[in-house]
């Protein structure tokens, strides 16, 4: 499915990471990895460090911190917020929606729409789409899109394939209408038949939580998990990213009338540097145009990887001017969404620590 959003712009992005940073070199003894295997794994996935939130810090705390930062800086006023969209797969509660909880903590007026979206990897782009649609309501001046995930809490700390690659983070994006047409070309695809590729099998209502679902199993050496942890079919996901995402990138470039030359930055979701290098090579995109450094420095933080990628890699450029970018989020669902747009200048574009 393709569409073009018009007269909408992103005006600020703040990404929030926990101040607690852990290095792979310190953690690997806990993963049942021999020094040789650890070295091989570290090299293959370019692992270095990641940010992990302490137990008492939730996704909403990271997002709220970022939002308060924007309010304190004067870049956003409470009365301008017409809608709060919270995208996460690690909400505070099953009920109520976390956006409602955040609304209460901010003391916002009653004329505000609160909406939670359950999405991960493609969650920043799905959230943007929702924001653009909400801005069709004249009474909404600005939409605040909050993306946050603490996936480290959805796995065992000893799981050597998941834990080292994971990071916790939140982001706040302010979206509003603009005079200029500023077309945002968007392509969306879903394939629920492959939903088991990235899944937490138990703990909700299909397979409720029991002492059985919390029992740890070692599926292969050093890979410990229970049924309430994230299960990933690595091979299926690899095939998906190599087969389904490149055609969507071709589709969106053709749709927007762009080429690999006219797009300055390909700011993709960051599952790990290995897959991103393979993708760039396959799509014949120069490696320097497709940053793959976020996992090495922060970990894969689900839908936050894209705003973190933008804030870390393009901050200087985007606060001064604009850049033609291609964004792409792909993963859990399976869902894959891509956009081509002129991004910037941004009022605020930064990373803060909680």
């Amino acid at each position, binding site marked *: 499915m393709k569409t073009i959003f018009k007269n909408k712009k992103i005006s600020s992005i703040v990404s929030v990471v926990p101040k607690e940073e852990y290095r792979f070199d310190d953690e690997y003894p806990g993963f049942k990895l021999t020094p040789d295997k650890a070295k091989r794994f570290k090299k293959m996935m370019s692992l270095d460090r990641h940010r992990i939130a302490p137990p008492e810090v939730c996704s909403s705390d990271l997002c709220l911190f970022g939002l308060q930062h924007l309010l304190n800086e004067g870049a956003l006023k409470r009365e301008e917020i017409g809608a709060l969209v919270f995208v996460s797969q690690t909400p505070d509660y099953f009920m109520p929606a976390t956006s409602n909880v955040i609304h209460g903590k901010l003391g916002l007026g009653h004329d505000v729409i609160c909406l939670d979206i359950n999405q991960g990897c493609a969650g920043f782009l799905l959230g943007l789409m929702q924001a653009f649609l909400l801005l069709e309501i004249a009474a909404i001046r600005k939409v605040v899109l909050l993306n946050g995930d603490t996936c480290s809490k959805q796995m065992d700390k000893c799981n050597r394939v998941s834990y080292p690659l994971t990071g916790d983070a939140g982001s706040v994006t302010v979206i509003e209408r603009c005079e200029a047409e500023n077309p945002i070309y968007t392509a969306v695809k879903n394939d629920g038949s492959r939903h088991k590729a990235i899944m937490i099998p138990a703990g909700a209502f299909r397979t409720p939580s029991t002492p059985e679902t919390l029992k740890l199993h070692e599926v*292969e050496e050093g890979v410990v998990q229970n049924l309430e942890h994230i299960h990933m079919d690595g091979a299926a996901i690899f095939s998906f990213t190599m087969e389904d995402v490149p055609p969507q990138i071709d589709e969106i470039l053709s749709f927007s009338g762009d080429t690999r030359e006219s797009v300055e930055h390909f700011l993709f979701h960051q599952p790990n540097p290995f897959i991103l290098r393979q993708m760039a090579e396959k799509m014949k995109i120069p490696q320097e145009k497709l940053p793959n450094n976020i996992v090495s420095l922060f970990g894969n933080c689900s839908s936050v990887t894209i705003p973190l990628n933008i804030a870390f890699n393009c901050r200087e450029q985007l606060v001064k001017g604009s850049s033609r970018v291609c964004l792409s989020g792909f993963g859990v669902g399976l869902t894959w969404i891509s956009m081509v747009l002129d991004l910037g200048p941004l009022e605020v574009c930064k990373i803060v620590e909680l």
Partner: protein
Amino acid sequence: MNTLEFCQRLADILDIVEVKPENVLGEFEQWDSLAVLSVLAMVDSKYRVTIRANEIRSVVTVGDLAKLVEAKLGEAKQKQ
């Protein structure tokens, strides 16, 4: 497809000196989920064919894997 070259590429991934067609993949110490990913990536990059998750799980020996890649190459040629 050059089987010797394929075996050498597999040996590089597994970080061992030599790999033979009769070797059983599951018996290599280094044959884990990461090795599988590296193989999928190598096959995509060097042979330009895609192996699916279920296909790689169904092969037993190095020779079986080589035959799978060969079959995919044959399919690709037919499509041209």
